[in-house]
């Protein structure tokens, strides 16, 4: 249907009003959505609830989109482009994006780099692990195996060239939607997708010259160790330990297959869950792979340059015969040596258990677990000289980095010490925790090694394998035979961890420590001495487990707050600065402007203010000639015309509307006030001659002539939850603008009153009267001469309605009273009368 002529024009005016109101409502809604999102992020950050990277990313995105909506809708209300605001938005968004994706894009970077070619600027290409290994090359006392790195750029190329980005994202999305029920199946699907694809030609072309050179140097039968070095790996406070596969003793023929397996290990079930918990945006975690010449070790292990749990003057060396795997995965009991940090280095303690098995290289590639020759089982796997060499080298590495280190080392068969890896070590705070006396008979198990101090009580959940562990109820103590990173999934629910076998240096122990879970590993008999379902207390301070609850409630500080300094919480804190910080606090200040907006919160605050100011003026261009207005038939002698924005299309033939047809909640309240008994809209207020002349004189130079003449009709633009009422009665001007809906955060009333027919001192007294009444009703009021601006915000719809009734009463009661206000004393008298409910204010008319 096409409409012609005036009707069409009228309809367009109405549509224009509707559009402005619609945009206004969009601003209010988006404003609420954004503020709720901010509050939710803060809450999750402060209470460590459900803060994973997917959440942070989603929260930032919906906040950004919400703020974008707010700005674009403001443009539709003001009819002007908010260029400055858009610029500010872009700047803030860029800052937030760079917090989320610190190195989102690379391109044209090398696919392979030798350790010597790596410099400080290439960490994002080779990952922290390989960057620090390259660093070690520069420390004269440390010998590092020859090698090169297939960079994160190679990973990116692999993914892009094989079109894996979208398919992987889709699977991860499916995972999120299935609420992790399909974790194992989805993990397998993604890993297979990666393994099925060939290594792109460019990667092979980049790697081959390095492989050739190494073979030339070390012989044709050189074996390689392939280690992951993710670009977000090993940030301070986040270990990512054991999240990606490492392949030892790789023959050249298997090189690319193993390379793909390292890439695929990014999607192992526990790696996926670990990221979900600790952060790391999938596409930003790029895996560089270090390809080092394999050191064939006689013994290998880990040294902590400072005991994370014990004396600060103590180093801890864990050592296993053969490959170092048992030390890091906790699969066997290993030697432990305590060495002083201060000179002269002294070996304080030796712990030499019987080592029944060891991990060795297989002839055709790969590794195998074999028995330790009977005569050697009880021998220490390091000589004192070697212990001192390890300790001395470790201290020089620590000195280089300036922080305690966790260093992987290996002795080859020629007795040469190699450093395979070094990373920062987290030292637990509150190490000296007093323990409580426990009756000896209650103690179930004693011994082992504390991997993370703390005390926790819960029902024992004894799991003999990973599958069993997956059923752990929330808050239970996980008791396992042997540590393995695969248990990290179950840790998410556990209150403490106990194992029969495993070292504090094992990946699982590191993960548990990172989560702040009281953990004791290597207790030997925990799974046999602890009965499933019993309530037990893990005292990972004294290294004991006893039945029942602790005799005294442990202090709150005993358990380190989990996740409080994880990668994800740091990102959340960073983005919140740009999102939720508020610098625009005072709307009255000249600094309250678009260009001063520094955060999303500033923008929302600014726009909200401007939008309300703009809506205040929505009434300006409306007149009785506009065909869409209808006269309100109401029992007071006022010409009120109504534009109802909720009406759809045209309702021809109707030019009147009854109060019973009105559905606008705030307008009905205002009308209720205006129609209150005792308010006299009709009738002439008696004035003396002087007052009369002053009225006449003032009309000649009234400051507030708008588009409509004074004393003309009043107009109400209304919607279910909205009213904008503008009246120009008897030489004054009053506007009420109010939104009143379910959400109190959107609700507000703004009121302005100005003008009058009398002299300025009398008009000012009336303004004082109005502002005192409104202050008594909790409005924020500004009054200057005859101008009153009042606001009331964020009240429930019930309160808003009550206050609108008051405003209706006030508008009626103040009509023409300015001419009577001959003395200051009248101000307070009128206020008292009004508040008492005497709306004639005691004036005889």
């Amino acid at each position, binding site marked *: *249907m*096409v*409409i012609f002529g005036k009707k*069409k024009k009228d*309809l*367009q005016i109405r*549509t*224009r009003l*509707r*559009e402005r109101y*619609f945009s206004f409502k*969009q601003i209010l809604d988006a404003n609420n959505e954004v503020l709720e999102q901010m509050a939710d992020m803060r809450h999750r950050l402060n209470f460590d609830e459900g803060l994973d990277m*997917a959440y942070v*990313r*989603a929260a*930032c*995105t*919906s906040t*950004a*989109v919400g703020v*974008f*909506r707010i700005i*674009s809708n403001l443009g539709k209300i003001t009819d002007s482009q908010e260029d400055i605001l858009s610029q500010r938005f872009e700047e803030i*968004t860029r800052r*937030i*994006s760079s917090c*989320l994706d610190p190195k989102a894009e690379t391109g044209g970077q090398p696919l392979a780099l030798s350790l010597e070619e790596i410099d400080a600027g290439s960490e994002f290409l080779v990952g922290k692990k390989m960057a620090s290994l390259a660093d070690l090359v520069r420390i004269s006392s440390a010998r590092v195996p020859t090698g090169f790195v297939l960079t994160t750029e190679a990973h990116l190329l692999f993914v892009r060239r094989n079109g894996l980005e*979208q398919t992987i*994202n*889709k699977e991860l*999305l499916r995972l*999120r*939607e299935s609420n992790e029920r399909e974790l194992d199946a989805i993990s397998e699907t993604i890993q297979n997708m990666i393994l099925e694809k060939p290594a792109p030609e460019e990667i092979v072309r980049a790697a081959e010259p390095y492989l050739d050179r190494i073979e030339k140097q070390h012989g044709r039968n050189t074996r390689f160790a392939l280690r992951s070095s993710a670009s977000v790996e090993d940030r301070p406070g986040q270990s990512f330990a054991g999240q990606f596969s490492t392949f030892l003793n790789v023959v050249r023929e298997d090189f690319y297959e193993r390379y793909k397996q390292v890439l695929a290990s990014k999607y192992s079930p526990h790696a996926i869950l670990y990221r979900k918990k600790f952060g790391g945006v999938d596409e930003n975690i790029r895996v560089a792979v270090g390809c080092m010449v394999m050191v064939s070790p006689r013994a290998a292990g880990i040294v902590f340059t400072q005991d994370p749990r014990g004396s600060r003057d103590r180093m801890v060396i864990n050592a296993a015969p053969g490959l170092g795997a048992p030390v890091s995965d906790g699969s066997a009991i290993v030697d432990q040596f305590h060495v002083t940090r201060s000179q002269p280095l002294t070996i304080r303690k030796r712990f030499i258990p019987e080592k029944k098995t060891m991990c060795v290289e297989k002839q055709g590639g790969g590794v195998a677990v074999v028995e330790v020759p009977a005569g050697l089982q009880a021998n220490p796997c390091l000589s004192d000289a070697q212990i001192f060499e390890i300790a001395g080298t470790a201290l020089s590495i620590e000195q280089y980095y300036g922080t305690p280190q966790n260093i992987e080392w290996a002795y080859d068969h020629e007795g040469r010490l190699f450093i395979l890896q070094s990373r920062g070590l987290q030292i637990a705070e509150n190490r000296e925790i007093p323990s409580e006396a426990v009756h000896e008979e209650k103690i179930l198990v004693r011994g082992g090694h504390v991997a993370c101090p703390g005390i926790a009580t819960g029902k024992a959940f004894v799991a003999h394998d990973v599958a069993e562990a997956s059923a752990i109820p929330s808050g239970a103590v996980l008791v396992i035979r042997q540590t393995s990173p695969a248990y990290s999934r179950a840790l998410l629910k556990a209150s403490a961890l106990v194992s029969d076998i495993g070292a504090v240096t094992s990946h699982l122990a590191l993960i548990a420590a990172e989560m702040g879970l009281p953990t004791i590993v290597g207790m030997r008999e925990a799974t046999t001495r602890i009965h499933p379902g019993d309530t037990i207390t893990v005292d990972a301070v004294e290294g004991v487990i006893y039945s029942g609850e602790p005799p005294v409630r442990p202090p709150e500080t005993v358990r380190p707050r989990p996740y409080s300094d994880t990668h994800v919480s740091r990102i959340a804190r960073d983005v919140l600065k740009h999102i939720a910080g508020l610098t625009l606090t005072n709307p009255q200040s000249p600094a309250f402007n678009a260009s001063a907006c520094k955060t999303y919160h500033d923008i929302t605050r600014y726009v909200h203010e401007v939008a309300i100011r703009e809506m205040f003026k929505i009434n300006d261009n409306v007149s009785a000639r506009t065909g869409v207005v209808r006269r309100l038939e109401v029992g007071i002698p006022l010409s009120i015309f109504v534009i109802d924005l909720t009406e*759809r*299309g045209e309702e021809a033939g109707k030019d009147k509307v009854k109060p019973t047809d009105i559905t606008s909640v705030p307008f009905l309240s205002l009308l209720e006030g205006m129609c209150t008994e005792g308010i006299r809209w009709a009738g002439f207020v008696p004035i003396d001659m002087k007052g009369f002349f002053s009225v006449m004189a003032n009309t000649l130079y009234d400051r507030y002539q708008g588009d409509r003449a004074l004393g003309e009709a009043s107009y109400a633009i209304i919607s279910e939850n909205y009213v904008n009422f503008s009246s120009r009665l008897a030489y004054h001007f009053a506007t009420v603008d109010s939104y009143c809906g379910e959400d109190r955060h959107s609700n507000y009333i703004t009121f302005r009153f100005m003008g009058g027919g009398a002299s300025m001192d009398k008009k000012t007294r009336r303004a004082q009267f109005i502002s005192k009444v409104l202050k008594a009703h909790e409005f924020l009021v500004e009054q200057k001469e005859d101008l009153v601006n009042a606001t009331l915000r964020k009240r429930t719809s019930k309160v808003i309605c009550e206050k609108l009734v008051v405003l209706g009463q006030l508008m009626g009661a103040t009509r023409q009273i300015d001419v009577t206000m001959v003395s200051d004393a009248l101000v307070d008298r009128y206020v008292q009368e009004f508040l008492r409910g005497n709306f004639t204010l005691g004036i005889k008319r």
Partner: protein
Amino acid sequence: MGCSVLVVDDETEFARDLSGQLRSFGHSVDIAYGGAEALDMLKQREYDVALVDMLMQQMDGMQTVRGIRKMSPLVEVIVLTGHASITSGIEIMKLGAFDYLLKPCSIEFLSRKIDEACEKREMALQRAGRVK
């Protein structure tokens, strides 16, 4: 308020499920199992709202939204995605999308957004002299 909605998603099961739920909210719903199909369907008739998934195999959400905005600028577009990205969210909004929503989102919330988009379109039609 019932709106005509075109669900654009190549996940057959999800698209059907979503359509069913939207119908129970009084909307009339058709499904396009991909961006190209959506553009074909929009050549046949206009819809009030196109509900577009971001991750689609053949023609992705961004291309699809671009195509819809070019071909039928008065059709309101709501993007629904499970893969939050500020960059793509803002890009979509700059293309003139009504909103960019993240999964999971409740069907009530989605339906309310569809109603709002519909109201916006109705006003745009009126402004253009076309009455719905």
